[in-house]
């Protein structure tokens, strides 16, 4: 079952430090070419650990669209 929430990193403000990547229990995050964090929406379980650790506070948890 998919989680209700998922994390989204704001590309523009991300500093690509990788703190979120280390924190994620699902290995859902990678740092795209040293530029910004990319979160795999499908892997993400919406635990919010990444958002909690991000020093730039640029990760938001969003509600997933409800599937019909």
């Amino acid at each position, binding site marked *: 079952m998919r989680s209700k929430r998922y994390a989204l990193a704001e590309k523009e403000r991300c*500093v690509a430090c990788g703190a979120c990547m280390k924190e994620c229990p699902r290995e859902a995050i990678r740092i795209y070419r040293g530029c910004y964090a990319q979160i795999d929406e499908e892997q993400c379980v919406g635990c919010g650990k990444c958002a909690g650790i991000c*020093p730039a506070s640029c990760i938001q948890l969003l509600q997933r669209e409800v599937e019909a």
Partner: protein
Amino acid sequence: MNKKKHWYDYLWIWSIVYFSLGFFNILFAWLGMIDFMVPLLFAVIGGNKGFCNRYCGRGQLFAVIGGSAKCSRGKAAPRWLSSKWFRYAFLVFFLCMFGNIIFQTWLVASGANTLREAIKLFWTIRIPWGWTYTAGMVPDWIAQFSFGFYSLMLTSTLIGLIVMIFYKPRTWCSFCPMGTMTQGICKIRNNLSRGRS
């Protein structure tokens, strides 16, 4: 959940070893150049932030002290601290300070200045550090650079520790000059390669 630990997850020990060595012999400060060159190599050759993401002992040190040892309030830092203008301004400031170290080294090398066996914290507080160096061991300029570079490393780590306590553990990483520089290089590389294809 505990993730599998890799050897490089222990590089925070290196950070502590580095500062300890400089306490006994300042010439070890030169080893800090590794932390200067390796991130750039990752960025320029690999086009990634492999250093920040895996191997940076300093980032890990903040994560360990602030995170695992809970010496951090874990509050969100003010937004301007990770804003582009502040990050680039801080990078420029840092490069100027690095340039100044080179300049001081050159002054000593050329004989215009004599070696000062002291470190300077926060670019203002001078602390005698003479016991870590016996005059004549190496040419004076090599020692001068050591004192300067060690000061820069120590100052930046202290700033990092301060923001670690007040904000999130790795707050330093959001405006770390090396982090800004390597991300900047990666972005330029990425734009270039996208332009080509």
